């Protein structure tokens, strides 16, 4: 319409008519859209994941005619959070925004900015059972008295990927379940020359500190890892974590461990056969399957036999969906309906099987098993078993620490200094804890 206005001379000569036509068309299109309540959903899922997100929204939109969910890709997690905050400050916030797990404390303390999910569900009289969700997944986003603040969306947990070919060559039949056993197995790998590097890890702070603490039931920070209050302070420099980092530092000298980078940079070391094992997100399964030209297997994250007898569940990473304040009543009801749809076993099972992220409900996990997915894709159920093997304790529910993004950076910085031999493990972790505690104190001041 607007194009013809600009190009056709007749439209120029009779502007009144042309304009009237445009106006009528605009009004008509608006009329049809306004019968349904529009809901904006900002997310950080690019590529194939983004397509899946669009598919879920489209299916929801087709399943009813009251609400329309519009997913908008806003860049990576940091960019999505920053733009949602900027939009909130400008009074133009989306109704739903996907926020990564380390942003949880910032979101939950922004009391006037968010609508907690439990409240949203209660206000909308939606039929909502918090017990349907996997405790180890939902716990990360739930208060100590069981109130769900945000809806878990894409969650993963660290597992161990192993190169079966290398292990066979080295004569390691079973992947050990303890760090002690793993040390011996990796020794065989390196000594036999089957691979020049035994083990590497992606996301070192998440795997080697946060999850090591959770799995072995040691506090990462005081105040139940921050769940009980803003005065939580880091404790990893006073626990078995120090011995663990010491161990990795030693393993580094004989090639049993190689540091690969802060995020996913270590993955090529495993894909190329340089390293026999890699610890990384369960959601990397598809990436490993597509890149590995060798037989691989998935094993649980090991536990430390010197610290515990039976391991805890591991904690999750990923993101959840937050509802921002400023939505109309109709929009809130729409969000509630959408969350209910999103939590249904069919949608969750499909999401879980397609992406490798964990299902958020027990029903979805059960459905996936019934559909035979785990039998067809061996190893995909390791993460879910690891998450549901035990009830989460205070130390394995998750982390609720302010400025967590920067704390992770501080920890990674310390690990890099330790592994490059600049400082001892104890001194490095002490420095990281001190810097991290300053960040926690800052967050406490700004939010109390």
């Amino acid at each position: 319409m607007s194009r013809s206005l600009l190009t056709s001379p007749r439209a120029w000569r009779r502007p009144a008519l042309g304009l009237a036509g445009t106006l009528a068309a605009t009004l008509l299109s608006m009329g049809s859209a306004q019968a349904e309540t529009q809901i904006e959903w900002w997310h950080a899922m690019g590529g194939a994941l983004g397509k899946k997100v669009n598919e879920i929204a489209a299916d929801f939109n087709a399943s009813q005619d009251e609400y329309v969910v519009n997913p908008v890709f806003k860049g990576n997690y940091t960019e999505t959070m920053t733009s949602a905050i900027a939009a909130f400050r400008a009074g133009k916030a989306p109704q739903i925004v996907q926020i990564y797990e380390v942003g949880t404390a910032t979101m939950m303390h922004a009391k006037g900015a968010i609508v907690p999910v439990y409240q949203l569900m209660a206000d909308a009289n939606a039929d909502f059972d918090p017990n349907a969700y996997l405790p180890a997944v939902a716990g990360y986003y739930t208060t100590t008295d069981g109130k769900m603040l945000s809806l878990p969306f894409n969650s993963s947990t660290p597992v161990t990927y192993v190169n079966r070919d290398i292990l066979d060559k080295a004569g390691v039949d079973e992947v050990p379940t303890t760090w002690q056993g793993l040390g011996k197995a990796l020794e065989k790998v390196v000594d036999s020359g089957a691979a020049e590097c035994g083990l590497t890890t992606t996301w070192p702070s998440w795997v080697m500190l946060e999850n090591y603490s959770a799995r072995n039931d040691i506090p990462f920070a005081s105040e139940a890892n921050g769940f009980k209050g803003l005065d939580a302070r880091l404790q990893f420099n006073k626990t078995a974590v120090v011995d663990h980092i010491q161990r990795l530092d030693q393993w580094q000298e004989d090639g049993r461990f190689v540091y690969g980078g802060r995020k996913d940079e270590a993955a090529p070391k495993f894909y190329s056969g340089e390293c026999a094992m890699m610890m990384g997100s369960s959601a990397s399964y598809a990436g490993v399957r597509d890149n590995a030209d060798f037989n691989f297997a998935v094993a649980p994250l090991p536990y430390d036999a010197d610290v515990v007898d039976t391991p805890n569940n591991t904690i999750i990473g990923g993101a959840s969906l937050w509802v921002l304040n400023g939505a109309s009543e109709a929009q809130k009801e729409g969000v509630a309906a959408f969350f209910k749809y999103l939590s249904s076993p069919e949608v969750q099972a499909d999401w879980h099987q397609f992406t490798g992220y964990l299902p958020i409900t027990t029903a979805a996990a059960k459905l996936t098993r019934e559909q035979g997915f785990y039998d067809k894709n061996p190893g995909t159920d390791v993460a879910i078993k690891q998450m549901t093997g035990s009830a989460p304790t205070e130390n394995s529910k998750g982390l609720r620490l302010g400025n967590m993004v920067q704390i992770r950076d501080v920890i990674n910085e310390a690990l890099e200094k330790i592994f490059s031999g600049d400082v001892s493990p104890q001194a490095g972790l002490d420095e990281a804890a001190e810097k991290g505690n300053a960040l926690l104190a800052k967050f406490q001041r700004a939010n109390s």
Partner: protein
Amino acid sequence: MTHFQRYRFTPWLLMAPQLIIVGVFFFWPALQAVEQAFYVEDAFGLSRQFAGLANFIAVLQEPDYYQALGTTVVFSLSVALGAMAIALLLAVQADRVLKGANAYKTLLIWPYAVAPAVAGVLWLFLFDPTLGLVSAALKALGIDWNHNLDGGQALLLVILASIWKQMSYNFVFFLAGLQAIPKSLLEAAAIDGAGPWRRFWTVTFPLLSPTSFFLLVMNSVYAFFETFGTIDTVTGGGPGGATTTLVYKVYQDGFIGQDLGASAAQSVLLMILVGLLTLIQFRFVERRVQY
């Protein structure tokens, strides 16, 4: 001059587009940053308290800030001087080429058309500790390249990538400057018995000084502000903060950490610092420029 004084509004009108753009995209945000630097505020803007100089004091007490300052000095000096020296060398060589000069010039100018982030990714692939071609070659030479762990190597890598990116820009200006030098001057010097080296330092280089000075200012600004994309894609400020420059720290604290007060205080300090640097350049270095 007197003729124009009758027109009181026309000059403003003609300058308005430029003034509006500078006002909206520079002065307004800059003033907001100055204001923000004196407040402590949560990310969502729900509470805001006047903090006086607390943000500045906190920044200046932070050891990381001085580490970033040191990194910035090393990084900026290496990038500005390196990019200019290599560009000058290439320009002098290209100026003497007779055959296929256009092909050489096009190839040398090419990197400027590459976005900083893309340039970063290119270098990242070359130097990736596992997959990179250069790192594999270095390994063959017995050098263990792992910029994910070695701060010095990481800094060297971002310096190289940034120099490569800026070299073309400098090359264009140096080449234009060289071509503007009258050949008769060089010929006269040659007749007087000056060798190529002497001719370069006594004739060519002084005549290039306006260009060099302009490039010094531009390259400092480039090294300070525009290398962000390269650093972000190549090292993300790591390892151990070894490649965190002042601008990168502003981004880390403000965008990733959502600590607006500290981030604003840092950008105000950075503005002052770069302002001072430009002032020094114009007051002291420009004196030695021969126009």
